[in-house]
């Protein structure tokens, strides 16, 4: 694209490689901030959405890849890469003033690789305890369990609230400063990690002024299982089983995304039959996930009936999954080349019976809860998220769309069988809690439409392409996006031509949602916090990986 070419021409220091709609831009460390701010703050085409920051360890050098896209032309992606040779005290410039989502991403890279981002006022670890020894995703990490035994004491709150900042002064000397997260007089309430409404093990520290929330500090890592590191020791066909267990509600979709990435790298032709089946299963997963999200949000507001209704309808989908895939919550269905096994002879019949049933129930759900005056009183006018904020925070999925940001990957970059289906991207403009609530129910309706169009047209043929016994990806970096039920899920695979990947990174759509909570809940009442969390519908194991 001409505009992007022009932009890149303004960076004489950058090395640019183009692959279709992706530009790989490598810049020296010193120019990172200049390049990033040029991409973000230019008049022609602002790259206002930071998908993710991927830390990498090449053995001799450490680095970070910034994945950027523009909300105007979301199909174009720039991967801005920078490396540093310093393994002792690696530093890079921080970009938190450009994108709101950057602060958690930078902390994650710091946690896993030990890179300090200069001037980021909060260089704590993100997932691991502050007293953890070593940086686990480095290639030379010492995994000796004696170094990091199972702790017997809870983490020290003092250490949790101490914010280090690293910067380099004019003489080139490294300085470290410390700040306190909360003032001494502040009234701080602990929320989680064991709490029925945190949707997983999330720990929030909330500072209050009376009933009003002043500040929220999310604390992750209570379910950090180290999946990305484990992926480096697993073969390509083994990895999908871990992906299912990350964001278990939309696991099938994420797994599909991973399979697409590997297939793209192998240039493997997948049959249309597999594409259709995957798409239908994905949409069923989305419905199941939205039903649970809806039920949990209602439950968070005190409406237990809605939760029971949601679970009841979800069971119908679980039955369909069980018959065809063999599993309920973890169907383990997509695999490299297609799907594990063909659909059950009754699959189509059951799905076709489900669609009208779900339509009927959806009406009931609306009567039961959407129009309920108590529910409306609580939801209306609360938790405003503007479109600009949503983009800058990277709040993808239904949350972003409720604020008017068109970000549906199924439309931007149609994969699998979505190009054969006629459906609308649901958009609302107000960005309030009620919009986030209702958009999920609307999306269920759209998913039903997609399923209806595809279910009778599943083409014949093999359901899985033949692959080699040992799968080795060619050397290079591969990237794939899919639309999960909570937002955009990205897979980044870096391969050195082995049968194990060199680095795998998953973009967690839920991490940005918790970051969103941090912004929209401030100034509101503490009583709304749980409901706001419900309206964002995050899954914590997806954040922690």
């Amino acid at each position: 694209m001409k505009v992007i070419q022009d932009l890149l021409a303004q960076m004489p220091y950058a090395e640019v490689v183009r692959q279709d709609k992706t530009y790989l831009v490598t810049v020296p460390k010193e120019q990172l901030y200049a390049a990033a701010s040029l991409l973000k703050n230019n008049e022609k085409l602002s790259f206002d959405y930071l998908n993710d920051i991927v830390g990498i360890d090449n053995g001799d050098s450490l680095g970070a890849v910034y994945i950027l896209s523009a909300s105007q032309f979301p199909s174009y992606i720039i991967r801005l890469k920078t490396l540093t040779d310093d393994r002792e005290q690696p530093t890079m410039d921080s970009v938190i003033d450009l994108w709101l989502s950057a602060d958690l991403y930078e902390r994650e890279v710091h946690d896993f690789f030990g890179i300090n981002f200069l001037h980021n006022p909060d260089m704590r670890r993100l997932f691991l305890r502050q007293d953890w020894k070593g940086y686990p995703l480095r290639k030379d990490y010492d995994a000796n369990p004696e170094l990091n035994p199972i702790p017997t004491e809870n983490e020290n709150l003092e250490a949790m609230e101490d914010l280090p900042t690293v910067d380099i002064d004019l003489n080139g000397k490294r300085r470290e400063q410390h700040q306190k997260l909360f003032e001494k007089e502040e009234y701080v309430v602990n929320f989680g990690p064991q709490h029925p409404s945190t949707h997983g093990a999330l720990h929030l520290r909330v500072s209050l002024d009376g009933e009003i929330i002043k500040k929220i500090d999310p604390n992750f890592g209570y379910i950090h299982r180290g999946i990305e590191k484990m992926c480096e020791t697993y073969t390509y066909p083994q990895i999908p089983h871990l992906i299912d267990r990350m964001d278990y509600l939309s696991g099938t979709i994420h797994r599909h995304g991973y399979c697409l990435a590997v297939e793209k790298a192998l240039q493997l032709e997948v049959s249309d039959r597999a594409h259709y089946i995957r798409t239908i299963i994905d949409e069923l997963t989305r419905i199941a996930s939205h039903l649970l999200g809806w039920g949990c949000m209602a439950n968070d507001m005190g409406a237990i009936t809605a939760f029971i209704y949601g679970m009841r309808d979800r069971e119908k989908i679980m039955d369909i999954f069980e018959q065809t895939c063999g599993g309920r919550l973890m169907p383990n269905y997509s695999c490299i080349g297609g799907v594990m096994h063909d659909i059950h002879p009754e699959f189509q019949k059951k799905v076709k019976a489900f669609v009208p049933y779900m339509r009927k129930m959806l009406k009931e759900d609306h009567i039961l809860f959407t129009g309920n005056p108590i529910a409306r009183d609580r939801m209306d006018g609360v938790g405003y998220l503007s479109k600009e904020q949503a983009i800058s925070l990277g709040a993808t999925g239904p949350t972003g769309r409720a604020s008017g940001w068109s970000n549906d990957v199924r439309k931007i970059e149609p994969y699998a069988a979505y190009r054969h289906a006629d459906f609308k991207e649901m958009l609302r403009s107000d960005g309030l809690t009620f919009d986030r609530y209702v958009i999920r129910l609307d999306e269920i309706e759209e998913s039903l439409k997609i399923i209806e169009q595809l279910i009778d047209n599943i083409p014949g043929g093999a359901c899985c392409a033949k692959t080699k016994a040992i799968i080795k990806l060619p050397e290079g970096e591969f990237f794939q996006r899919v639309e999960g039920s909570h937002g955009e899920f990205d897979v980044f695979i870096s391969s050195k031509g082995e049968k194990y990947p060199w680095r795998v990174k998953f973009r967690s759509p839920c991490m940005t949602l918790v970051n969103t909570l941090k912004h929209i809940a401030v100034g509101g009442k503490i009583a709304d916090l749980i409901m706001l969390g419900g309206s964002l519908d995050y899954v914590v194991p997806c954040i922690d990986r």
Partner: protein
Amino acid sequence: MEVKDIKIKNMKYEDFKDNETLESYVQELRANGVNVAVAKIDDLINWGRSNSVWPLVFGTSCCAIEFMCTAAARYDFARFGWEVTRNSPRQADVLFCCGTVVHKMAPVLKRLYDQMPEPKYVMAIGSCTISGGPFKKSYHTVMGIDNIVPVDVYVPGCPPRPDAMIYGMMQLSRKIKMQEFFKLPKQPATPQGETAEGGEA
């Protein structure tokens, strides 16, 4: 008349896969001589206890969703008197550990367990809680929660189906039913004064 048996009303004796373990335990109890009067009162108390077990749900990840299915309309564990899920450990009888426990979470689990009043039980749901499960190679996962707290019932699966969870619950019901209530520890035997007082609250 025999005192102490392991039959429960909610599930047929023959439907259990393993009856021998508990039977031998009962034999042992009888051999040691059970006072009939005490045992009768025991039975009465245990009948009540085993039919209204209040769980504390420690749901960290995927298995918790299957637990929610168990609680919802279709599988409905309210049929067995298990539905009063408590959010405070001080009111709970059994800790349902659903989901992976990692290093950072381990002290939290231990603390919750310590805060529960005696007699208390733990159910380990899912392979993660039994042995680390799929995350055996991870640097941050606890390889089995029995490293941290004692476990009464293990329910394997990744995730276990709701039926499997109910089977596990029935096993625990039987275990509760045959215990000698008056010989169970009354107060948490932990050095922390905080938790001992919590048991009463």
